[in-house]
Structures are given as C-alpha cells and as structure tokens.
C-alpha cells in the first residue's frame, strides 16, 4: 500500500526539515520527501494536506488508560482511539492499574488489548517495586522482555532510601530506564493544591514545593551514585528545573518532561473551587510556570506529555478536596501545545520536537521522525481549525478537562500508524 501526503508543510525536527512538499509512504514506512514521486512509485491513495502541517506522530510519555481495573473511567480501546484522534501514535502507560504492572502477564495484556484496538503503539511502563509498595524489587528483566520500556514507582512513596538505591542499582545493571514522578509522601499526604496564597485564601490544604524538590534532590543523588538511566516526569516547580540543570552541569545524563497543563495554568486559576483543576502534581505558582516555560526553551525539559487521566463524571462532582485529581488530556495535547507557539514562547518546529523527537530520544526509540526507512507514524493537522471541547468532540471517556466548553485552535485531520490510516476526520 502506497500513500502520498500531498502539499503539506512537512516539519521533521530530526532532519531539520520545514518545507512544503509531498511525503511518500511505501508499505508502512517513509520512502521520501519531495516534489516528484520516486521512480516507479505509484500511489494507491492520496491525502490532500494543503495548508496543513505534516509531522511525525506524537509520542506521549505518560498516560493512564485505566485498563485493567478502572474501566468505568476509560478502556484501552476508548483511550487509544482518543489518542489517535489527538495525533498521538505512541504512548506510555502508567503501571498504576489494577492489577499493577508488576508481572509480565499484565504488561502483555495491555499490549494485546492495544494491538486488538490497533490505534497506537502502547508501551507499558513497569512497576519499579512489587505492588508499587516501595519495598521489594519488581521483576524488571522479565517485564522488559514483556515489553516494558521503563520503570517507575509512580507517585507512590519509596520511603526506604536503601530500597530505592537497590532498585536503581539493579536497573542500572541492565541499562533500564527509570522514570521518577517525584513526590514526597509526607509533604503531599493531605494536600490537594499548591501551598501558596490561593490555598491560604480558599482554606485548602496545600502541597508545598518541597514535596517535589526534596524527592528530586534525593533521586538525583542516588542517580549519580548508581549511574542509572533516569528521567523525571511531569515536573511542576521552577526549583526542580534548577536542580536538574545543576546536575546536568555536573555531567549527569538525566532528562525531564512536563505536562502541558503546567505550562499554561497556575494555582491562581483554581477559582471557585473548580475541581477540573484538581491535579497532581498541583498547578503551581505563576513563577513556577514561568520557570517551567523557561526550562522548555533551554531544553532542560525535552518533552511535553499529556499526563492523561480520564475520570468518570462523579469523580469530579464533589467539593474540591474530595474529588479525584486528574485531567483528561490526549485530545487537547496538540492544540494546547500550539498555544505556546501562539504565545511566542517557542517556534512551531521546536514545539513539534518536544512532542516527537524529544520523547523518542528519551526512550531511545528510532521513531519520532519522518526519515526514510522508519515506520510511517504521521500526524496531519490543521493549525488554524478551531473546535470546541465537549462531550461530542472528545472520544476519551474522560471529559474531565478545565478546557471543557472552550474553543481550541489546532485540529488533527489524519493520523497514520505504520502507514495505515487510524484516524481521519
């Protein structure tokens, strides 16, 4: 099957390409970018991409698909369909399912279900410790053989530093990637929003900045000691960026990402106890947001993720502190990220890099590019089209987004996975 995507503005940060041309796909892989078809090439199908952007399919470093365990909130089928509609072709899933991803069977189940649905490449993140209890090492090697691409203890505490050290030593032995979602258990135990002027005013228990920075500091020291391949997910504080910068200056090879909502929103937006803004880590101060945005520009943050957490309706129907944290984000990842370009924080090709090549490099994947020979995971979007976020437009079972009812600019028209059209508007 040959598909040609005609006349789009092709942006591929890996090749530093930003040009209006055709993209030729041959048997599921990228063949060429150019104005004339390669010799002997006959297109079976043509996609008109004039006035559209053609870029590598997005790679989302952290999502909850909720299956197995919480299928009232989302299923692998529903959420991967939503991902395809959001231009995402590869995503990582949280190990915090029920049962937890600490045995090969669960990791395989997730991938089998994802393959049946056929919308995106689903790469499970395995649990670092059994049951995410923070005590006993999970079978990292077996989980890797069953498809886990990285390991994390999610936001659950690793109280015992010795246990953490052993986990990192073991992961380092096999050159496995460990993802830290830094959050000190004691400092975040009761809180539901950033500890600052807004929480003081509303009388909500705060989560101080130190809940993140203490844990980032501890992890950085142990990373340095063990030499483990390490990545920090969904940072929320400016000070965390400074800590990671300092470690990188010392020569430590650590990477980090940020969730899109932390680049756009802050604690001052939590007006009137709006539970759609209840999220972990919490939306921090405007200064933190500025620090994160700077970290994106200076490349300390090399990827933007959705931190997709679909919830059922009742999960948000309670007073703020009693609601479940989380924002549904697969389908808004691209349009919200495009706001950063509109706000002149970064250029469009740079933004595309944060959503494609950046996360691919963190994971050591060869995707996230439109180089000839790689699998044709492609996103075609209209940067000018607007759409309204509502029950009808969202495919995800989770309608829990602070942007519900808002009109967003930037809409995915078509998503290809391995040269196959998995989403078309």
């Amino acid at each position, binding site marked *: 099957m040959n598909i040609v995507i005609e006349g789009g503005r092709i942006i591929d940060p890996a090749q530093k390409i930003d040009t209006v041309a055709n993209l030729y796909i041959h048997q599921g892989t990228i063949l060429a970018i150019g104005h004339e078809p390669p010799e002997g090439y006959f297109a079976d199908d043509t996609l008109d991409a004039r006035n559209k952007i053609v870029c590598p399919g997005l790679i989302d470093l952290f999502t909850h698909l909720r299956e197995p365990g919480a299928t009232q909130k989302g299923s692998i089928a529903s959420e991967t369909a939503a991902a395809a509609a959001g231009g995402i072709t590869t995503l990582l899933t949280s190990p915090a399912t029920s049962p937890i991803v600490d045995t090969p069977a669960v990791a395989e189940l997730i991938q089998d279900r994802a393959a049946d649905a056929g919308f995106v490449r689903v790469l499970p993140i395995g649990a670092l410790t059994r049951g995410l209890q923070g005590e006993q090492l999970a079978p990292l090697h077996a989980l890797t053989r069953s498809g886990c691409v990285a390991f994390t203890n999610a936001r659950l505490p690793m109280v015992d530093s010795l246990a953490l050290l052993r986990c990192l030593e073991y992961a380092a032995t096999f050159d496995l990637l460990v993802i830290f979602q830094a959050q000190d258990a004691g400092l975040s135990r009761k809180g539901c929003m950033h500890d600052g002027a807004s929480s003081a005013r509303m009388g909500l228990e705060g989560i101080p900045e130190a809940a993140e920075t203490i844990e980032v500091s501890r992890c950085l020291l142990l990373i340095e000691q063990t030499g483990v391949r390490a990545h920090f997910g969904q940072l929320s504080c400016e000070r965390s960026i400074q800590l990671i910068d300092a470690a990188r200056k010392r020569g430590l090879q650590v990477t980090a990402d940020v969730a899109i909502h932390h680049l756009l929103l802050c604690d001052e937006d939590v007006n009137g*106890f709006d539970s759609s803004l209840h999220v972990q880590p919490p939306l921090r101060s405007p200064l933190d947001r500025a620090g994160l945005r700077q970290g994106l520009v200076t490349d300390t943050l090399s990827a933007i993720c959705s931190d997709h957490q679909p919830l059922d309706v009742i999960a948000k129907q309670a007073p703020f502190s009693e609601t479940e944290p989380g924002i549904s984000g697969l389908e808004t990842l691209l349009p919200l990220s495009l706001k950063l370009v509109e706000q002149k924080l970064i250029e469009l090709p740079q933004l595309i890099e944060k959503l494609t090549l950046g996360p691919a490099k963190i994971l050591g994947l060869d995707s996230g590019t439109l180089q000839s020979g790689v699998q044709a995971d492609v996103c075609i979007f209209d940067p000018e089209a607007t759409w309204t976020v509502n029950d009808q437009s969202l495919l995800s079972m989770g309608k829990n987004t602070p942007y519900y009812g*808002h009109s967003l600019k930037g809409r995915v028209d078509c998503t290809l996975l391995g040269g196959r059209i998995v989403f078309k508007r």
Partner: protein
Amino acid sequence: MLPKEYYDAIQLTPEGQLKHFLTIEGLSPLLLTEILDTADSFVDMNAQQVKKVPLLRGKTVANLFFEASTRTLSTFELAAKRLSADVLNLNISTSSTSKGETLKDTLMTLQAMHCDMFVVRHSASGAAHFIAQHVTPDVAVINAGDGRHAHPTQAMLDMLTIRQHKGDFKNLKVAIVGDILHSRVARSEIHALRILGANEIRVIAPATLLPKHIESLGVKVFTEMSRGLRDVDVVIMLRLQRERMQTALLPSESEFYSLYGLTENKLAYAKPDAIVMHPGPINRGVEIESRVADGPRSVILNQVTNGIAVRMAVMSMAMSGQQLNTQSSSFTESSARTESL
C-alpha cells in the same frame, strides 16, 4: 474553567443582591453594611415580646449539617423560626455518606422535597460553593461553615458586635489570635474587616498555625502577643482544637496557653477599652483565661445574641434575592464561558 468574575458573581443576582451567602470575599462594603443594618433591626425585634416576622412564611429551610454543631445549628434554627419558616434539621454527618451516597445525590434527594433554602455546614472547603453551583442553583444556599474556607455568618455577627461597641471600623486595629491555619472564622473575618475598612488587621500565632502567604489577604503577621496586641481595639480569640496537639503543630496545651492564651496580663498590652471576642465554644485555660472570658471587656455572649439577628438578616435577604432572580434569570454558566484561556 470559568473566568474569576463568574465565581465572584455566583452569590449575587445581576442587580447585585444576595441570592446565596457563601463567602464574604468579593462582596461590597455597601452590601455588608446592608446586612449589618438589617441585622440591627432584628436585634431590636428579638428583644420584643413577640419575636416573629412573616418574611419567610410558607418557605422551608433545611439545615444540612454534615459536621456536628450545637450553637450554629440552634441559632440558624431559631433565626428561621423567627422568620416564620418551616425548619428541617438534618444531621447528615453519619447517615447518608456512610452508606456511600455522594453529596450530590443527598442534595438532589432533599431538593426533590422542595426546600427553599439550604443552610449547609460541611468539613470540606468549597462545599457550599459546590452545592450552589452544581446541585441546587434555584435554592438559596447559606454557608454555615465549609472546611477551613469560610464562615460568613459568624464573621458578620462579629462585625455587628464590633460595630455596636466601637461604632465605626475606620480607626480600628483588630488582632485575631490562635489557630489561623484551620480557621474558617479567621478567613471570613479578615475579608469582612478589610472590606469594611478596618485600619489594621493582625494575626498572632506560631508559624505552624499560620497558612503560608497569609499576608496576601491583607494582614500583618505577629508571632508574639506582647507586640501583636499592642494598641489594638479588638481581640478575637480562636478556638484551639485538641486534636492539634496530636500532630507536630504544637507541643502541648500548656505551652500554647503560656505563649498565646489571653490572660489579663497579656490583655494589658491592648487599648484600655479593647473588647475581647471568641466564636465559641471556648476552652478555658487553653486559649483564654476565665477571668478574661467572664470579665467586663468580654463580649462573647453579645456575639451569640447577635448571631440570631445576623442569620435572620442574611436568610431574609438571600430569599428575596433568590425570588427576584428566578423571575429574571440572566447570568447563566454558559453565557459566562469565554474562550480567553
């Protein structure tokens, strides 16, 4: 996510009248003064032989207390009865929620009984806002205390008490002492004092009982009574809950009393005519000395009396605002949504 103006307007009709009473924050000095003036008229009435007016006749008021309370519940009940309303008291702290029913379902059930007003106390900050926004927009919601967030009727009865004793707010220095962190009363009082134009608002507590960035509410922070009480006109003591001793917030009741308990010696730092207030129930020997609590400068029992009048004022004002609003409703959620964010 809705613009801030929407939330500021949630308790007001488009004409600026009260239709709910959820928080003091965002209300105008004019409206607060109107509440105090209305309450004043009820104070006089409550001293009469016949203590009843027909303002809420034919209306049903449900007191929904998701958290235990004696004095707030009873003054709300009395206030509603003196306005001629039918009153339903529901102690929900242990019944529905323990059966797994959500707050929303509980409220929907009660709404189906055609109540006209909910007086709500709940342990979660923002509970009253949640109810007013999502559950019962046509029922007047009066916040009788939500978590640490607000206790607006308590703040207004304190303002009434201050006004009765001091006349004007303009030249007043007011100190609020004790557990500011957990206090919805303190937050509402700070807003009320600021809006009514108090000269200086102070909070006095150890750092463990102060919320971070409390200064952003427009208060001066003191950690010592000797400095914080100097030249103040009003001292408001807060209740210290015994549970606080079981955490790392405070070492012991006696240490707290020796540092922050209001004794006659410490009261001497304040102005000679300073009044002493307490929202009750008081812990004698923990936050206040008996001689002070029962002394000539204590207005604690005036506060209780004023509580009924203030609650009558707020209930009658919200009910008339709600009635006018349902006749000409215009400010809806959908019209408030913007595309600005």
